[in-house]
């Protein structure tokens, strides 16, 4: 952990809210990206950001100074997103990651431009990928996002999900397997075009 993170945590523990603000400045973008990757929804991702820093603030006394703050905050963010997804699951809310009508929750899609690069980012590709990600369970999605996007170790992910190493690896494999089954035919077609 960098010296500045350590100093900011120490200051925040002592009651210096500006010190905690330093940590918010440093990690808010990353936490938003993680929240969005897990929930596929901007509003939910914003909620994850708020909830993450609130929980972190309340739990500062439990943070071990020799640990890495970034890893710790991602762990909190992953749990916050997981809680949100579980709540969504329980209430059986159906939120489409992409609204074809173009709601404010949808990521912006590029204009129709026939270059290969634009095709890659087409609405169809995004839709396929988002549906495939939505088909993962909350646990699978968490494990995949933390491994693939955040590069967290198996041990760290196991800590977040409270799974043993073999179960964590298996969860990641199941997630990738599902994505592959959904997207492989589509990826092959894209390459053939």
């Amino acid at each position, binding site marked *: 952990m960098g010296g500045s993170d350590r100093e900011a945590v120490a200051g925040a523990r002592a009651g210096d809210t500006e010190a905690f603000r330093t940590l918010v400045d440093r990690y808010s973008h990353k936490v938003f990206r993680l929240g969005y990757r897990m929930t596929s929804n901007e509003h939910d991702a914003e909620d994850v950001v708020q909830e993450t820093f609130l929980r972190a603030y309340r739990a500062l006394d439990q943070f071990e100074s020799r640990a890495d703050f970034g890893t710790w905050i991602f762990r909190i963010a992953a749990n916050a997103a997981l809680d949100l997804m579980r709540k969504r699951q329980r209430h059986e809310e159906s939120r489409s990651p992409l609204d074809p009508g173009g709601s404010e929750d949808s990521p912006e899609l590029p204009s129709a431009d026939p270059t290969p690069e634009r095709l890659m980012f087409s609405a169809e590709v995004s839709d396929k990928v988002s549906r495939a990600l939505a088909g993962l369970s909350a646990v699978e999605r968490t494990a995949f996002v933390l491994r693939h996007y955040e590069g967290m170790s198996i041990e760290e992910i196991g800590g977040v999900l409270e799974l043993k190493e073999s179960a964590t690896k298996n969860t990641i*494999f199941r997630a990738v397997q599902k994505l592959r089954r959904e*997207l492989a035919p589509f990826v092959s077609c894209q390459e053939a075009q």
Partner: protein
Amino acid sequence: MQHVTEEQLVHYRYGDVEEADRRVIDEHLRACASCRESLGVLEGVLAAVDAVPVPERGERYSEEVWQRLAPRLAARPQAPRTSGWAAIFRPAEWLRVRPWAVAGVMAALVVAAFLLGRFWPRPPAQVARSPQGAQTPAPAAVRDRILLVAVGDHLERSQMVLVELENARGTGPVDISAERDRAEDLVAANRLYRQTAARAGEAGVANVLDELERVLVEVAHSPSEISPAQLEELRHRIEAQGILFKVRIIDSQVKQRERTSAEKAGRGDT
């Protein structure tokens, strides 16, 4: 020639294989066009996943986050005491030792807290005041909230396992090792909660926890891979008992009580 399995390929791609295995896979991929193609498809899928854009946040985003967050930051909570409940209830130490043992240890605390709350009269609420003059909740109220949060947490974790099983799919053997591991960790805690609820006369809660425990035990004792027929049987059992619905009802009630308790604490009520 023995090909690389799909699972090995995924772990290889993420660098989650032992060095000796990595060398073997490297060598095989050099010689096997079919496995190279499989790896190529996997890379293509992951590249497609990477290509989905994340909405950009502006330069002032962290400032906006802070503006929303700052009013919600209460005065720093007091440092944990080194005696009494707080000395026992320090999650950081448990997590360092064995994360999955937290459930069992918390359950033991919950039992003690539950029994104390039910069978010993509480002293009149004594509301402490911080140096700023704000009220802080009495110890008994804090214990109640700890109890309710612990039970709610256990029910949420149990629901996760049930939902995962209900959503599991497969035409071949289905891997439920993750759910099995979690069920195993939940059984001991559930047993304590069930026994405590029964002793406290909470027959409805005890009955639901009893049904839940039977399902958790069955899952915990299952092999890591089960056939589609076995999965269907397990799923049918969960659905036939309506166990998920019952657990959700109890969880909802516990959360409501926890919120009520928190609100009372915030007002300085008992």
